């Protein structure tokens, strides 16, 4: 069961990444190429998932979006972890008012889900794919700060940290050499979870028009377009959703599997 999560999650994630990589060099058709003679075509040998209201090949679009969606998630998680992990580490190390300040800041940032930040950025600077990356990234900062702080405080009470301090190591060296490597597992699990959340958030933002802009496709935009044609081409609303769900399911299973592997004490509790 435990190995099952890891294997299925790994396989689904590998398929997603593989699809994204293949789309760099090859897609069956151009993901932006319109063909008005073959609009809303049903799935066939020529178009395995049919075509959209503009005659674009749905499979090619899904492949191209796997790539752009992963890119958004990658940057959003990098922003969140890149700022959140040092903040959480500093908070755990210094305690006192620094800790209080970082944690109150995290509370505050939690009140701004990616959607609200994206709304503000879009009202300010107009819509665009970068908004989604930034908005999701900002929301990830407090998540990583909290997780890092919690784990680092726990690790800080371990004997090896006390021993390092006793022999006179500096706090920064202790953080980098002793604490960080020991909380790496926790952070890795959080990274996969945030990656999955970022893919959903990006799809949601592009659904309401705050993310990737046409003509470049996005899973959210595809679903929004498909909704206009639910009576004529209901399948159009199915494929992009399946793609999102499988991507997120794969990353979640991978995260669960990694957690079980890295921390056997938690087995069966989730």
């Amino acid at each position, binding site marked *: 069961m435990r190995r099952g999560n890891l294997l299925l999650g790994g396989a689904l994630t590998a398929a997603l990444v593989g699809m994204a990589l293949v789309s760099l060099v090859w897609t069956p058709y151009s993901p932006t190429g319109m063909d008005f003679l073959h609009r809303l075509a049903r799935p066939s040998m020529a178009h395995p998932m049919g075509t959209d209201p503009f005659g674009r090949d749905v499979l090619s679009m899904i492949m191209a979006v796997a790539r752009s969606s992963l890119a958004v998630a990658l940057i959003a998680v990098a922003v969140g972890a890149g700022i959140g992990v040092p903040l959480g580490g500093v908070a755990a190390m210094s305690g006192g008012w620094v800790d209080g300040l970082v944690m109150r800041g995290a509370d505050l940032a939690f*009140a701004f889900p990616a*959607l609200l930040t994206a709304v503000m950025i879009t009202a300010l600077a107009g819509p665009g794919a970068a908004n989604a990356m930034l908005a999701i990234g900002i929301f990830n900062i407090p998540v990583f700060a909290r997780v890092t702080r919690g784990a680092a405080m726990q690790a800080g009470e371990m004997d090896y940290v006390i021993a390092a301090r006793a022999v006179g190591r500096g706090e920064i060296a202790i953080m980098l050499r002793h604490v960080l490597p020991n909380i790496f597992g926790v952070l890795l699990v959080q990274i996969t979870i945030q990656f999955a959340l970022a893919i959903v958030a990006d799809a949601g933002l592009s659904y309401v028009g705050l993310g990737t802009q046409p003509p470049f496709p996005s899973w959210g935009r595809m679903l929004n377009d498909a909704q206009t044609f639910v009576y004529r081409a209901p399948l159009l609303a199915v494929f992009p959703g399946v793609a999102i769900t499988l991507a997120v399911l794969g990353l979640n299973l991978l995260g669960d599997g990694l957690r079980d592997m890295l921390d056997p004490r938690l087995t069966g509790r989730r």
Partner: protein
Amino acid sequence: MGRLVLRRLAALLATLLAASVIVFLVLSVLPGDPAALILGTSARPDTLAALRHQMGLDRPVWVRYLAWIWGLARGDFGVSTTYDVPVVELIRQRVMVSLPLAAMGIVLSTAIAIPAGVAAAARRGRAVDAALMGVAQLGVALPNFWLGILLILAFSVALPWFPASGFAGWDHGIWPGVHSLLLPALALALPQAAILARVTRSAVLETLGADYVRTALAKGLRGWVVLWRHAVRNALIPVVTIIGLQFSFLMAGTVIIENVFTLPGLGRLIFQAIAQRDLIVVQDLVVLLAGSVIVVNFLVDLAYFALDPRLQAPGQ
């Protein structure tokens, strides 16, 4: 206990003020000149100056902030530049859609998740557990707006039981309104319920292993009494924490789901306001929604005290 609540209340006010400063800075100061943003690049200088004066932009920044926040506190949200009506009027109509939708979402999700999580924990490792948790694993991965579209496909297109879009209003009694909010609320609730069911299951599993549960069983109490009165009750704290944390996702979800079902709520209003560059409406709505998350998390903090008498001990 009283002092602790007061301290939390002070922290709540500070957080609300900080959030309002952020929103104000982003939407009123960063744009440089909101009037120019509203009128576009082709505006004539005198029109621009007139709008600036009308919006009060010729005053210092801190005066504008204080005027805005003082207005919010008194229920005066300013005047929408596109509709030319008080923003409070726009919000009052739409809140009657968004608030019931969010409330139905929370109620449905809790009503589904807690029995499912408890049932899975009580039959740990058996088929019921595996089936429920398998469905939950899939539910966590389902984006709510796609679930909304699937529900439309199933219950509006294939079976014409519910409207695919629109809101019937509250003028003809409660049922027509609830009926048009049921599918959207379900789309909001199911993915949340999946997460909540998993948390409930692991929390109940933990309390089921506690000594007081063994004691209760040893003194001969029936299994289901022990389960609900001892195990579930003590497992509620992590469950309430997650319900609180989920509120921020629920709020964002409500905004998106309103667009899936074209419901005339706050979520539609916010996107209309962006499209029309009605910045004061965007600013009011963002601060209102962020404020609602802060207040809900404050209430969840207070709920801990009600749920866990140990936290009420003096010296805590």
